[in-house]
């Protein structure tokens, strides 16, 4: 069969019927130059999605909701870039018009509310990567230092060897208003987990949220916040499979926050609770 570059575009853009897809795939695979071409173009797609998809879950500015509802007539120039929820937007929200879209208030984007969605998106984007699963490999000395610096808060990658997952590496994800760190883990069966870390700004910085689970499509996400950081552990695993690992991460990070970071944390969790722990209101372990 005679194919050409146009068919490679069609292939990576999913524009081919299954039969044609098989044929073109085979044709591409048969030649190293074509393989490289297809791989480069696929990579571009992934980079674009990784960079811009997070916008899909951002809270919507009221001025855009207003524009959609009433057009220009009442939404004159004064409404541009005015923060704050107006009566109209609030009424629309109450009428259930916006479904899962979040209306922003004067405060910055509610990172915690959108964290599961963001984490699931980031997890799905990098899940199929072979070479680029991690941007910076785990053994590279500067990984933790670099990420901590970019997030302007101490980050650490807990060890999950006991659960069969080894740290492959990490990456920095540019977010809309701040960068986020992503740690990548993999077990011998090839199953992958990603740990997403974001620094929280006031007023979220002092909030501590209980451990909670959300299913986003086929990705399960455990989220919580503590010590001025939001965390999300994502995996294409069941809640039951992820629970022990998530607890291990939670415990390790909890300890790491309280002890000086000098080598691996080896002490087991002090309270072996059966349920994922809720952060107590007054934790005696916290320093003043």
């Amino acid at each position: 069969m005679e194919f050409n570059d146009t068919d490679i575009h069609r292939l990576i853009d999913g524009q081919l019927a299954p039969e044609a897809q098989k044929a073109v795939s085979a044709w591409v695979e048969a030649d190293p130059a074509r393989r490289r071409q297809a791989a480069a173009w696929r990579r571009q797609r992934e980079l674009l999605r990784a960079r811009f998809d997070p916008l899909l879950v951002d809270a919507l500015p009221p001025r855009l909701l207003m524009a959609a509802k009433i057009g220009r007539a009442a939404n004159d120039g004064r409404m541009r870039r005015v923060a704050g929820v107006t009566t109209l937007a609030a009424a629309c929200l109450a009428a259930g018009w916006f479904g899962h879209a979040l209306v922003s208030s004067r405060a910055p984007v509610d990172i915690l509310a959108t964290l599961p969605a963001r984490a699931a998106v980031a997890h799905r984007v990098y899940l199929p990567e072979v070479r680029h699963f991690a941007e910076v490999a785990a053994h590279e000395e500067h990984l933790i230092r670099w990420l901590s610096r970019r997030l302007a808060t101490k980050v650490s990658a807990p060890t999950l060897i006991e659960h069969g997952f080894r740290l492959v590496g990490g990456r920095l994800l540019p977010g809309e208003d701040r960068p986020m760190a992503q740690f990548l883990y993999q077990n011998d069966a090839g199953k992958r987990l990603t740990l997403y870390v974001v620094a929280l700004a006031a007023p979220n910085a002092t909030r501590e949220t209980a451990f909670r689970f959300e299913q986003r499509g086929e990705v399960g996400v455990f989220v919580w916040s503590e010590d001025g950081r939001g965390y999300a552990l994502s995996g294409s695993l069941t809640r039951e499979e992820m629970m022990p690992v998530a607890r291990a991460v939670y415990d390790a990070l909890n300890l790491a926050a309280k002890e000086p970071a000098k080598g691996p944390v080896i002490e087991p969790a002090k309270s072996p609770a059966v349920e994922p722990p809720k952060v107590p209101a007054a934790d005696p372990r916290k320093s003043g």
Partner: protein
Amino acid sequence: MAETTFDLEALVALIPRLRRYARALAGDRARADDLVQDTLERAVIKRALWRSGTDLRAWVFTIMHNVFINQTRKAARDALPVDPAILAEIDTADGASAETYAQLNSIEISLAQLSDEQREVLLLVALEGMSYDEVAHTLGIPIGTVMSRLSRARARLAALLEGEAPAARTLKIVK
């Protein structure tokens, strides 16, 4: 009420996608949201022109395309539309992290160096996932033009991304 012929809920549901596309197209947050706002206002004003049952997404993205073209003609754009905050961060970071961060942001910087026509086609295909027919319909161009712009966009992007590390560090376009 016009609601029976114009699906306002569907329009609102499009807002995140419009924002994503506008952000990638226009390059900075404020300009992108202005673009989306203008688009939405036009869509509401022109709602009687939308034929129920036809592709609302294509219709709205066509409006955004037209608004963008008009804005581009009006604005004197000599600088690349890259968020200066990103470049500032790259400049102040240490050696290793600057390179890695540059890799992560190089897609955005490289994207800004495509022509508007190339960027629009690439984004509608790769970000919005439109079929080539839908892109042709949305932009009002023949499908052959879609393919040639897509091809050139990808070739240009590949060249920029390959040789990007030094280029990203020497970019001095900060406004």
